[in-house]
């Protein structure tokens, strides 16, 4: 198996810093922002993104949470039973907020579809945006990301692996694929 390291730890930090600026630019400041990470690796990424935003806008009241989407997935009958994760919202919820969903890899778009359905049950945000560390293409649904760390053209047979210190002990993004 061929493994290609495409992002290093510093690359990830720079990408998140840029995405934080983009989020603030588009939102015209930090008002009403709620950052929600999708388990597993979206959660630490959301934490880092919230930190980066707070670093730029020190007055921002950090609104960070996590959104497990298992209950709304469309592949529950196809895969082994998945453990449920936690849903944790900031104290003020998502009502009329600008929610930024954070995930590690955007691929088929089905996780984000489930996340949008999950959000519907929790309140009515003013807007929902999507931030992903890696967009690897091969979408199966009409979904796109608003903030992308890196666009990675991949073949469907390849696998994108994201490593984060909080979960895996190190930072990095690699593509695994069959030998050329």
């Amino acid at each position: 198996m061929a493994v290609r390291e495409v992002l290093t730890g510093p690359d990830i930090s720079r990408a998140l810093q840029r995405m934080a600026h983009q989020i603030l630019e588009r939102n015209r400041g930090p008002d009403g922002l709620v950052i929600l990470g999708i388990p597993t690796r979206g959660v630490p990424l959301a934490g880092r993104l919230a930190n980066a935003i707070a670093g730029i806008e020190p007055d921002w009241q950090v609104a960070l949470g996590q959104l497990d989407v298992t209950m709304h997935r469309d592949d529950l009958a196809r895969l082994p039973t998945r453990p449920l994760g936690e849903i944790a919202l900031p104290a003020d919820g998502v009502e009329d907020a600008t929610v930024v969903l954070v995930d590690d890899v955007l691929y088929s778009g089905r996780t984000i579809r489930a996340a949008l359905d999950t959000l519907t049950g929790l309140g009515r945000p003013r807007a929902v945006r999507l931030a992903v560390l890696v967009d690897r293409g091969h979408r199966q649904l009409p979904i796109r990301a608003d903030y992308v760390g890196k666009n990675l053209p991949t073949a469907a047979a390849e696998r994108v692996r994201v490593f984060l210190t909080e979960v895996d002990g190190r930072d990095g993004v690699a593509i695994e694929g069959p030998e050329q």
Partner: protein
Amino acid sequence: MKHLLSAADLSREEAVGILDDAERWAATQGREIKKMPTLRGKTVVNLFFEDSTRTRISFETAAKRLSADVINFSPKGSSVSKGESLKDTVLTLGAMRIDGIVVRHSACGAPYQIAHSGWTDASVVNAGDGTHQHPTQALLDAMTMRRHLVEGDVRGQDLRGRRVTIVGDVLHSRVARSGVNLFRTLGAEVSLVAPATLLPVGVDGWDCDVFLNLDEALDVAPPDALMMLRVQRERMSSAGGGFFPSPEEYAREYGLDTRRLARLASHTIVLHPGPMNRGLEIASPAADGPRSVVTEQVANGVAVRMAVLYLTMTGSKE
């Protein structure tokens, strides 16, 4: 997990996992939109050969909150009253491609038979079989106890070191059997209290303490959770069925009255699986008082059953 047939089948990790999942499902029940699409397209049959209000409605609520289609079956008005056998009834359901069967039956082992006879591919959940098992009741009791008796974050926690005292008609009680299995698995100490006539043969082989006198049990092993069982008159021939001299004497010796209620430790909770015989095994001040968690048990029942239906009915077949 394809089926849930007995509380004795669950390991500590599985049981704690179900309780943790149930907490997550319970969190969805406080929202404006309580219904999840998790089991959309699945069909669940409530196959209840015995009467039930809360268990059937609880399973029906749980399945509907998960977006499953629910069909209720009772023997009255069905072909069972014409003499159809359990096998033919289940074969019929199997032919209709039912995904889940929630079964209550007066015969011990009927759910096991349905699950393992090859009559159907459906997931089977035991909702009470004879005097044998009622695993979701034990799970909802454990969830209720964990919420009250474990401090801080309950997730991942068991009932280690807590004392559960189960009082009353142990002989006819599947709730007691399931409870002893599950509470022991979760690390709790269990006491059974009953007159000798209402203790099953071989109870000394069970993994728990047995008392014949309620006041002695409350003194020797003060409970953190006191579970009053229903006196199952329908399984007895007359008023006391010869199991005890009179309802008055039973209430005096084994009922939770105001005097015994006052003796309990300040943190002790009182559980009852329902339906309650007020004035017999439990007095109204105990049933309605601040220690009573009877209505919480009902609410937690829906969450536990959502967790069990999710675990048994999702996942690819092999």
